[in-house]
């Protein structure tokens, strides 16, 4: 198989165009926590009960033709690299991998839907889409929820809503988030100011790489804090409208950078980053993330003649350790990784159709 064919296979299926507001919003994601009555929550359940969960989901999937293209994979049937690839594609959490026995994941064909089995809750139904499409992601997760609730006896209380292992998720069981790229706000020193307002309206912010409000790659995740007392539509609506305001701020910062003498500096910075990525022979993942952030901004702002936003976004995934090693087809030492990472970046940037 050619490298490009391999790359296509290892990229997350959901990462595709069109991506509305994709110049700033990387992805939109919805997760619903659901549990089954009469079965202890995963951390408190025995092997028999955990298997019962997997069996019940398996049976539910077979009961509807709507699940025809869904596949249930057991984690204990996969090797560790393949499991980590799922994490790197944003399909499952790292927590699910802590104890692979009696854990599983259900995926649809384009990987926009992923159901984690026996993570903190019996089910975590995830729907993920590129760009700002949170409402669509919610509708897709809800549809899956509706198909499953016909077959599964979900734990629900009239007063408390959907019952979850952790009281912080009880109610809707909904965690909705968007991943936004804010390099221009960072450059003008305003990113903290803009993001620090979000907790006041009940939203969390964290850096996608590393914790806190500082993030390598200038990628930040915005999500809802509470799950009780607000309806799903209210939560989704709030995140979408706040995200739109954040987008406006980032666009204003980009315009300001273009309008002033800083334009030359900006063009210099993003093109230098592109130069490094297209010519390096050894590159660490830390440096790559920083450069990719600059190149992504440059690409979506049409400041780099040959770079294409989608190709750059794909690289954020291809350089991750497990995906990279799958791509090369063998275990790589950290030193070798720096070498192959540089090679994959060069090769992939050369495929930009511009």
């Amino acid at each position, binding site marked *: 198989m050619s490298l490009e064919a391999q790359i296509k296979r290892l990229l997350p299926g959901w990462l595709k165009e069109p991506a509305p507001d994709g110049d700033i919003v990387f992805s939109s994601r919805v997760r619903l926590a659901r549990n089954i009555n009469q079965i202890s929550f995963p951390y408190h359940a025995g092997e028999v009960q955990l298997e019962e969960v997997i069996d019940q989901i398996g049976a539910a999937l077979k009961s509807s033709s709507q699940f025809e293209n869904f596949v249930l994979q057991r984690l204990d049937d996969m090797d560790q690299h393949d499991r980590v690839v799922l994490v790197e594609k944003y399909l499952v959490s790292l927590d699910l991998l802590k104890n692979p026995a009696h854990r599983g994941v259900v995926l649809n064909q384009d990987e926009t839907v992923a159901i984690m089995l026996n993570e903190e809750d019996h089910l975590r139904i995830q729907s993920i889409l590129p760009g700002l499409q949170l409402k669509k992601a919610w509708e897709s997760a809800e549809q899956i929820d509706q198909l499953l609730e016909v077959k599964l006896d979900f734990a629900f209380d009239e007063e408390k809503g959907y019952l979850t292992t952790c009281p912080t998720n009880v109610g*809707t069981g909904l965690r909705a988030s968007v991943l936004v790229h804010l390099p221009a706000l960072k450059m003008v020193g305003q990113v903290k100011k803009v993001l620090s307002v979000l907790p006041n309206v009940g939203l969390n912010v964290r850096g996608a790489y590393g914790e806190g409000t500082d993030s390598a790659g200038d990628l930040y995740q915005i999500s809802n804090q509470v799950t009780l007392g*607000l309806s799903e539509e209210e939560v989704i609506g709030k995140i979408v409208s706040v995200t739109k305001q954040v987008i406006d701020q980032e666009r204003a910062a980009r315009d300001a950078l273009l309008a002033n003498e800083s334009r030359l500096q900006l063009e210099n910075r993003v093109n230098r980053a592109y130069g490094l990525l297209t010519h390096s022979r050894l590159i660490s993942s830390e440096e790559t993330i920083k450069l990719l952030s600059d190149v992504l901004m440059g690409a979506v702002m049409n400041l780099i003649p040959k770079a294409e936003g989608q190709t750059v976004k794909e690289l954020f995934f291809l350089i991750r350790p497990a995906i990279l090693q799958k791509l090369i087809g063998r275990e790589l030492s950290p030193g070798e990784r720096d070498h192959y990472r540089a090679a994959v970046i060069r090769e992939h940037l050369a495929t930009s159709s511009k």
Partner: protein
Amino acid sequence: MWCERCKKRQATVHVTKIVNNHKTESHLCEVCANETGQELGFLFEPNFSFHHLLAGLLENEFGVKSETLTERQALGIEKCPTCGLTFTDFRKIGLMGCADCYHTFAEYLNPLLRRIHGSISHTGKVPHNIGGRIRTRKELEVLRRRLKEAIKREAYEEAAQLRDEIKAKEAELK
């Protein structure tokens, strides 16, 4: 630079971690990095247990004295009949054992939920198999709240539409 663990080989893996605003750097060779699991690098999450924080909230909020708890445990009141989780367990780990725990520990839970969510009642989606009346009542709550907000915003056209929807739902309940 030499590996800080074995001090014998070149350090090739450099990891910076920030845990609770405290920055730590480690420089390891490939062998030691593999042994200590550092290879997953940026996939690591800081070791900050939210559940312990929750348990702390519980203590604070109720001022529940341990003696009273032990007495009640002795009477067998504080154990979930379905899954066997005790209230002491819950206080330690901050997690429920099964769906019925929400019923068993209900009296302790409301203040905690109010602390976390600022609310104690669900106004969102209701499973279809739970029955239409509950769902309609929940939907009514949401509509009424939206009506209030619409009036506050002086969005009267939207308010009129919401009022009609509320009337229709109320009729369903009769």
